[in-house]
């Protein structure tokens, strides 16, 4: 690009005003004026609160909610595994650990379910003519933009006792009594899968779409059958997409908070609900902050590992 290319200005600047010259001669200043406001907004109201949350997780718990400033303690993190007895000795308490494990299991099964449905769908989409591909991508994204509560609510209509699924199954004679699907772990899995499936399909589709299909043809020429071509060529080449999809499904599942309440009936807590409780009835802010901070740490570590491992590979296979 030549130096004659017009730079883009944020506001009217006279041709020779002193301010204009000051900005024009310093591209970094111009850039700062353009990007600065957005970065400052996210920095002050997005990143600063996250740091503050980290700080709060190391503060003493206030009597009626809130925190005691200046009193630093790791109590909130100890709290996660131990209860304090009357004589101040620590007793192992696995309640919270169980909630974490259950959240991990629930998120993992959702991720597997999403992968089993998502991969074949992405493969089908990638092999369609271009016009239809674009339409299908659009259809995959639409539910993502609809309201989370409404999406979960519609599953209540389908799953509840004598709801639509029960009625349908009974009318064709498969069952004679309500299945009581709602308020079970199954209902949570259905709801979570429904909410996050697009995040699985789209990254896999993106890597399959860029795939050089001649490689697959070469595999056939070398005597591979469909299954072998899939296992040895297509799946390895779309690994970045599959991993990205798995991360994008797994992480929001871990923090899910609406689905366990609405479809699980609030019987089985997940991490998100546990966090919410600390700011509601439990009034233990440092503990809530510690839980959130741990979840955030987990997310960031996963992202960094993914970027280090796959950065660039997705774009240039």
């Amino acid at each position, binding site marked *: *690009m030549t130096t004659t*290319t*017009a730079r*883009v200005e*944020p506001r009217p*600047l006279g041709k020779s005003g002193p301010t204009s010259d000051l900005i*024009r001669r310093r591209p970094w200043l111009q850039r*700062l004026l*353009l*990007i600065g406001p*957005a*970065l400052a*907004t*996210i*920095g002050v*109201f*997005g990143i*600063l*609160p996250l740091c*503050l*949350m980290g700080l*709060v997780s190391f503060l003493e718990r206030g009597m009626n909610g809130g925190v005691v400033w200046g009193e630093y303690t790791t109590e909130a993190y100890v709290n996660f595994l131990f209860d304090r007895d009357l004589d101040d000795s620590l007793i192992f308490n696995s309640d919270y650990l169980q909630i974490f494990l259950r959240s991990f299991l629930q998120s993992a099964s959702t991720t597997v379910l999403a992968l089993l*449905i998502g991969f*074949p*769908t992405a493969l*089908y989409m990638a*092999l*369609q*003519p271009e016009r239809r591909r674009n339409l299908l991508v*659009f*259809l995959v994204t639409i*539910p993502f*933009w*609809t*309201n*989370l*509560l*409404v999406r979960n609510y*519609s*599953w209540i*209509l*389908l799953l509840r006792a004598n*709801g*639509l699924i029960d009625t349908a199954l009974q009318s064709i004679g498969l069952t004679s009594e309500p299945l009581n699907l709602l308020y079970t772990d199954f209902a949570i899995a259905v709801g979570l899968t429904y909410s996050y*499936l697009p995040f699985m399909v789209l990254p896999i589709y993106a890597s399959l779409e860029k795939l050089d*299909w001649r490689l*697959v*043809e070469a595999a*056939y020429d070398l005597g591979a059958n469909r299954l072998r071509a*899939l296992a040895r060529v297509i799946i390895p080449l779309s690994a970045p997409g599959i991993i990205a999809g798995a991360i994008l499904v797994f*992480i929001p599942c871990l923090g899910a*908070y*609406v689905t366990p309440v*609405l479809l699980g009936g609030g019987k089985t807590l997940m991490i*998100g609900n546990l*966090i*919410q409780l600390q700011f509601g009835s439990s009034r233990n*802010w440092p503990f809530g*902050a510690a839980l959130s901070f741990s979840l*955030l740490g987990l997310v960031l570590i996963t992202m960094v590992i993914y970027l280090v491992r796959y950065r660039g590979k997705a774009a240039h296979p």
Partner: protein
Amino acid sequence: MRASVNPLLRFPGARGVAVLFFAYLYLPIVVLIGLSFNANRSATIWTGFTTDWYAQVVQNNQILSAAQNSLVVAAIATVISTALATLAALGTARRFSGWTMANAVIALPLVVPEVVTAVATLLFFVLIGIRLGLLSVIIAHVVFCIPFAYLPIRARLEGMDATLREAASDLYADEWRTFRRVTLPLLWPGILSGAMLAFIISLDDFVITSFVAGPGASTLPIYIYTLIRIGVSPEVNAISAIMLVISIVFVSLSFLIQRWRA
């Protein structure tokens, strides 16, 4: 087209799963909209077509005031976040040292789990003494709307023909003139599309809003949540269907505008 090149590139099972997938994706939406017109209160057995539930929704004052809050928040958050995102997209149009970092910061609200953002923002407002209410909701919404507005605008800028701007300066247009007469008109679809996405994300948000909204600042999703906790009812069907349709219309428009070539 590719499939016709080599029949071996067809995967018979994939088609079946894809059909099931799209059925799974759209069945709940269709069922919900269908049931919102059902005359029967029990909401399972179809007994006839009615629009009564919609009439009840529009006459419900609590719903109307929650909807008003939602619209005020979404409108303000959209304007501010789109303005910030447009400037940022113009600033990141060319690579510079720190470019990756700037993009990472802008994308951050997409990466952090909602419940974590909600907790952090709540603590922040309480500790620095901003009263929870519409203002706190608007501030929180601006932050997570920025990346949604930013991405379509940047995509539009990246697809833009640089020679047009060069031509303008060859024709002695100064920078401001080039921006106003060339860049901005070409950028409009991206800005509009980003604004629509920001609007819909703000209008639909529940998790973060439920943490940072004070007692008087109930938005529509918060009100819907309290209704759902009470139980299934035709009124919830109707208001949910309205929310669904608004989202779908806005997203469709946003995508159409994005694809529309100037």
